[in-house]
């Protein structure tokens, strides 16, 4: 029974585990930035005064939220990259990395957009009316009244989206990239045998990535909460 919890292989391969988590972090960091930008675009579409843009925003967000990420990632790498020949780079691993980032960013952006829109909706209409009645222009009321309140209430939901995104790197990694932690765990399972300690090693890695982020966003959203 003792050999069930023999951690020597984990400690011997710590460098490989660390490298694979570094790949996960690189994937997540770039995706965080891109999905924020894209999500802001969709959210601004959805709250715009233009019916066409609102329709497009709603359509895109619903499309993305109801499609499995696995299908989206497989579509990106097999259909867009392999069949339609849209390549980011001639090197397969670089191409895979950017398609993984693209799939995850596009997918996550829909959830970012929903969080942002919900945040704007938490600002009471009276705040906007008061801002207009004291003569603030559109940009002024947005900058000084609405966005500061919306931003605060959005921190919690956005944190949840980001943490879900960190966990979703495993999916795009396994489908399109193949170097990050979940893929590395599978590779080590094949090389050294699928043991519990190896799983625990990677599980701890993910705990280290997601739990502190959760504590941080929980603390921040509580601290920044708008008292109404």
């Amino acid at each position: 029974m003792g050999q069930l919890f023999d951690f020597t292989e984990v400690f011997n391969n710590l460098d490989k585990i660390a490298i694979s988590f570094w790949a996960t972090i690189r994937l997540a960091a770039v995706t965080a930035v891109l999905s924020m930008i894209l999500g802001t675009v969709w959210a601004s579409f959805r709250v715009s005064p233009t019916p066409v843009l609102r329709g497009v925003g709603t359509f895109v967000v619903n499309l993305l939220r109801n499609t499995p990420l696995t299908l989206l990632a497989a579509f990106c790498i097999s259909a867009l990259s392999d069949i339609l020949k849209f390549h980011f780079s001639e090197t397969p691993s670089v191409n895979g990395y950017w398609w993984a980032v693209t799939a995850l960013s596009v997918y996550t952006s829909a959830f970012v957009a929903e969080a942002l829109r919900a945040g704007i909706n938490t600002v009471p209409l009276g705040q906007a009316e008061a801002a207009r009645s004291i003569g603030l222009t559109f940009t002024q009321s947005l900058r000084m009244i609405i966005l500061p309140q919306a931003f605060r209430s959005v921190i919690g939901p956005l944190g949840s989206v980001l943490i879900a995104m960190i966990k979703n790197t495993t999916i795009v990694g396994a489908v399109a990239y193949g170097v990050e932690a979940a893929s590395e765990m599978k590779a080590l399972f094949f090389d050294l045998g699928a043991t519990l300690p190896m799983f625990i090693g990677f599980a701890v890695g993910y705990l280290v990535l997601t739990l502190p982020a959760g504590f941080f966003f929980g603390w921040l959203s509580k601290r920044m909460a708008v008292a109404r």
Partner: protein
Amino acid sequence: MSRDEATVLFDAPGPRARRRNLTLTLVSALVILGLIAWIIYDLADKGQFAGELWKPFTQWDVWRTYFIQGTINTLKAAAVGAVLALLFGAVFGLARLSDHWWIRVPAGAVVEFFRAMPLLILIFLAFFVPATVSPIIADGPLGNFQRVMVENVFSIFGVTINNGTVTVPAFAAVVFGLTLYNGSVLAEVVRAGVQSIPRGQGEAAFALGMRKNAVMRLVLLPQAVTAMLPAIVSQLVVLLKDTSLGYIIGYEDLTSYGFKIEPANFHNLLQAAVVCAAIYITINLIVSRIATWLEARSRRSRKSITTMSAGASLPAAGMASSGADAA
């Protein structure tokens, strides 16, 4: 949807704003039409509209062998996973509310652990690990227990044991992952739901002389379930989407059948992806519609209870969640 009334962002438009909105509408419509035209031109240029690529979808045999079979497998994994996840969620959600720390703390640790794990590595755990670990257990004191458990309980999911080596089929691995991950999320939903009930409800029930058990069973839970329903249904949509992870370990779900096996025979990957996505979106929209309907219904019947809205995401693992978040 005409928006001539004021919103948080925009005041009710006057004549000038209306003109400006009209210009913006025209410009954005042109840009979007241009974008669509470019995509269609590019796809046509690469021969993706060729008749033979779309022809398989007009044949009933293709639908039956691939898409319908795949959808059935997806729904099967989702249904089994949903039932087990709901059970897991109910048990651990209530355990976290227990008065005894020796129930509350371990249940909390289990829930927080599985909520923080990516679903895929849980599926890998169930799929790869038993084959190497089971022979060692079989030689140990728990060998007999393992055999009995696999033969009597886990065999329902297709798990087999041969000379002490346990083999887990892809279906069972997917269900295992879905149960633990979504079950943990549902446990949080249950906990938040019960905590969102006004405190006076429980206090009044205790004052009537009810025991803990009766308070929970007769007073808190019935109200909590009404409040939780939309959140539960939207988590079930997540669960349904997550079944597609079976594709990675070779479970024959809709993604596998529609995106790997069918295109391998007909060489129409792009077209198959469109059909698969359409099926997923249809199923999910139906389930979401049910969630919206449930939310509207529960809002009509109980004015006093704030429903946990279907769209609101629960705080992720580690984020201190109190009843206040859900209310």
